[in-house]
């Protein structure tokens, strides 16, 4: 008995010993997807690029998209929403929340794209299988860098976060290089993305051409002299060619009805060039929270998440609509407006909150009773990053180029498509002021107007400063909606009140770096260092 016990324990000890220390302690990871078992097939590549359409953009979309594009562009009046008014009042600082989260979000897009590109490059497969997916990730990175260049100017360009992790204290690159970087990403995307995307809502090469037309048009005005007054003809030509390619060769189609663009059931309609893809009933992070900040009352969302009563139209933009412009009603709710798609059960919703102001309509779609895809703080209408109407306007603007006015048939044709859809009479000559106005109204609340002003400020800075000064952002003008005439009128019976705003000078065209970033990297504010591009520029995009 005793000996048996002894032998048993000896055997046990031996078997443990034989298993070996290292084998015994090393546990294989079989439960999660890791770098060791990912990027093994085209399916993996697709799963990786698929993830770049929502979550990484969430913090950008949540507030900054409209707070900057429309808040700073002076389309929104939100005197009590600290995520909007610092931008409108030109008093934002490196601590302003949405500014910090937009910076984070745009760099999340950059770094996640970098990881995808690196992963695919090192993955299993032929180059021609890999290229379209690399192109898709570079598309995203290009869009993010375009925003970074427009907003902060000199920023850090990085293609591999693993290197940055080792040493994050690096210099910025000059704005011109950041634009060039964004353009090269987009040119790669235009070359290697498929003719037709694998699924509706994914970008194809014409999406890239569309963004290129915006980038080229922007860069055309950029030089050392912000008051040069002229745009670079070469880039204007490129913008024109890129836009034309989208118009002629792509599958994108101009919708007949402006109102249809802003319904959930029309997500990824034919006019969509690139939109952020939100998930019905998804987890926080893949949801579109915009409606919660816009909806003017709980009767719309059917829950408490309707914080938009004081997020309203700036009279400055409402004054610009003609009474017959159908876009006004799709963008802003005015007294007496009726919407069939909201409160369907009771025959639609009629806005009768006030005649003193207009509330937000665009991106407001109703409650879960109206559409089961809607839930609290999630109205999964896709966020437009670009649609065909803008390409038409870019095309017209590129043709106008450095001329004061044009009556070019092509320019007028596409400009009028947008103009007439809005219910307006076609025009016969075209100048910049008409383009400015058309872009403002067509793309109102689609986070574009501030960038339009910045684009102009690259070559006519003083004009834009004067324009913004004349907006009189420091005055709150009492207004009354005239329902019969469908116009907004100044209410003379009340006094204009004052609002404190920041100084209007050249510095407003650049945002401050987030303070925490500047502390962690003092080089952020140092002189930028030019970027060394490590690949050849694609030159055959328009010669095919």
């Amino acid at each position: 008995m005793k000996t048996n016990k002894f032998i048993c324990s000896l055997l046990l000890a031996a078997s443990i010993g034989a298993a070996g220390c290292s084998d015994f302690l090393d546990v294989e990871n079989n439960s999660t997807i890791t770098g060791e078992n990912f990027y093994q097939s085209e399916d993996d590549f697709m799963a990786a690029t698929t993830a770049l359409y929502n979550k990484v953009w969430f913090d950008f979309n949540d507030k900054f998209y409209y707070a900057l594009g429309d808040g700073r562009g002076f389309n929104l009046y939100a005197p009590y929403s600290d995520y909007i008014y610092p931008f409108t009042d030109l008093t934002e600082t490196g601590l302003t929340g949405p500014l910090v989260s937009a910076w984070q979000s745009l760099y999340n897009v950059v770094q996640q794209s970098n990881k995808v590109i690196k992963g695919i490059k090192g993955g299993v497969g032929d180059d021609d299988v890999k290229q379209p997916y690399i192109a898709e990730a570079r598309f995203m990175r290009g869009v993010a860098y375009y925003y970074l260049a427009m907003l902060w100017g000199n920023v850090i360009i990085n293609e591999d976060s693993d290197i940055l992790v080792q040493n994050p204290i690096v210099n910025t690159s000059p704005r011109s290089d950041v634009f060039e970087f964004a353009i090269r990403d987009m040119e790669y995307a235009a070359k290697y993305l498929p003719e037709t995307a694998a699924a509706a809502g994914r970008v194809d090469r014409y999406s890239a051409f569309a963004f290129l037309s915006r980038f080229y048009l922007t860069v055309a005005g950029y030089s050392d002299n912000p008051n040069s007054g002229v745009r670079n003809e070469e880039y204007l030509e490129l913008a024109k060619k890129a836009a034309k390619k989208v118009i002629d060769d792509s599958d994108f189609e101009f919708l007949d009805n402006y109102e249809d663009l802003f319904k959930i059931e029309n997500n990824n309609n034919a006019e969509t060039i690139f939109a952020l893809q939100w998930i019905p009933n998804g987890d926080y992070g893949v949801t579109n929270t915009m409606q919660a900040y816009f909806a003017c009352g709980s009767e719309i969302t059917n829950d408490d998440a309707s914080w938009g009563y004081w997020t309203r139209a700036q009279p400055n933009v409402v004054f610009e609509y003609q009474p017959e412009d159908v876009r006004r009603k799709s963008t802003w709710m005015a007294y007496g407006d009726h919407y069939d798609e909201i409160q369907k059960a009771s025959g639609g919703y009629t806005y009768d909150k006030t005649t003193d102001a207009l509330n937000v309509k665009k991106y407001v779609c109703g409650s879960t009773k109206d559409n089961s895809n809607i839930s609290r703080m999630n109205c999964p209408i896709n966020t437009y990053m670009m649609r065909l109407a803008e390409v038409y306007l870019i095309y017209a603007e590129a043709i106008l180029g450095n001329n004061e006015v044009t009556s070019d048939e092509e320019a007028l044709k596409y400009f009028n498509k947008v103009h007439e859809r809005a219910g307006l009479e076609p025009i016969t000559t075209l100048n910049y002021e008409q383009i400015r106005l058309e872009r403002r109204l067509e793309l109102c609340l689609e986070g574009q107007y501030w960038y339009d002003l910045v684009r102009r400020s690259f070559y006519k800075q003083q004009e834009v400063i004067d324009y913004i000064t004349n907006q009189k952002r420091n005055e709150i003008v009492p207004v009354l909606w005239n329902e019969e005439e469908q116009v907004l009128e100044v209410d003379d019976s009340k006094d204009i009140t004052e609002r404190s705003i920041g100084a209007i000078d050249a510095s407003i065209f650049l945002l401050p770096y987030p303070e925490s970033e500047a502390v962690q990297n003092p080089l952020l504010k140092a002189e930028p260092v030019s970027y060394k591009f490590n690949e050849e520029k694609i030159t055959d995009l328009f010669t095919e």
Partner: protein
Amino acid sequence: MINNLKLRLGWGSVGNQNVTDNAYLATYSSVATIWGTGLLASNTPNPDLKWETTNSSNIGLDLNLFDNRIEFIADLYYKKTNNLLLQVPLPAYVGTAGNGAAASPWKNIGSLENKGIELTLNTVNIDTKGFQWRSNLVFSLNRNKVLSLDTESSVIDKTVTSGSTTTIITRTAVGEPIGQFYGYKVIGRFEKATDFYYKDAEGNIKATALPEDMEIGKNGVWIGDYMFEDVNNDGVINEEDRTYIGNPNPDFTFGFGNSFSYKGFDLNIFLSGSYGNEVVNWGRTQLENPRENTNLLRSALDYAKLELIDPNGGDTYDNVRISGGDPLMPRMASSSASNVSNYRFSDRFVEDGSYLRIQSISFGYTFPKKWMNKIKLENLRLYCNMQNVYTFSKYKGYDPEIGSTNQDALLTGFDNYRYPSPRIYTFGLNVTF
């Protein structure tokens, strides 16, 4: 006289691998999309990850005197941690912050030392005629210092996002204790027009440093706004003027327990405390800011009130003075830039976190055995307990005993609306049959 005398010497080495699983591997998390599941990198792998090792040595003395009525225990220790494991805070442009970010890598970041003294004194003060009084006094003192950091900048900054603001709270740097508060220093308030200027050593009149991109004016810097210390003397207040404004580590902590018993009665009182540590009362940045549209502390009403010196004069900065309010509070600014500037993270929100707390009082009575036998009970005890009875502290928040936010050592003593410890009363009856 001496019942026990012991000298102890100890040395040990302890490993720590307290990191998230698979920190050395690239991991992916699934993201819902309309085309099925997408995969997003969820971390930044570090294949070179190693154990953290702490070597500690200590020398101790145990001494019992006078029939064990006095027991004294003393320890002196030195601990050195090498390959300190930390999830490195990185700038957001590395793609490590917010939704869709890949988490910062875990790294062996450097080395750290802790040294200190721990003293314990247990005494039996009185033990006569059934009356006993015992005391227990514990004193501990610890100093920590970062010896090396394996980051390019040799500092680690910890940011906090609260509401619509993201700001740096602590900095950890070589040669300093970990997690010190890092912000602006308020050196005063603009009380009168002449405060906007000062004379330097040569007698030249110079403008007082103003926050970056702000000018003298109602919407910029005005009478009643804070004056911040221009640490680098470049004439503007910006992030380069942040400096160490407080240390969350206490000079020492202590505990003092007393127990009394007489016949069936027993009374225990335990006090604990901490001295010399600083605490960030983060809630005040919002609750004391009269411009916030949340509930406010009553002290928010004490903002600096302004009035015109010459009521018929203009609204210019040389004709404005402070007419009331707390001498330390800024004005209520209508411009958000001025407001953000006054309520930036400064030493205004760093408070003395020293405290003495009556941690617990318990009082009980055990009925005599002979009575119990009559009613056929083994034991009957009546007692009441009070936890967290009272705290003596200058701290303005609810509870100075903060600890670390999310167990993050770099965010110690940061009171971000921490739920205060409750006061608990317990009355009880113990019956054993």
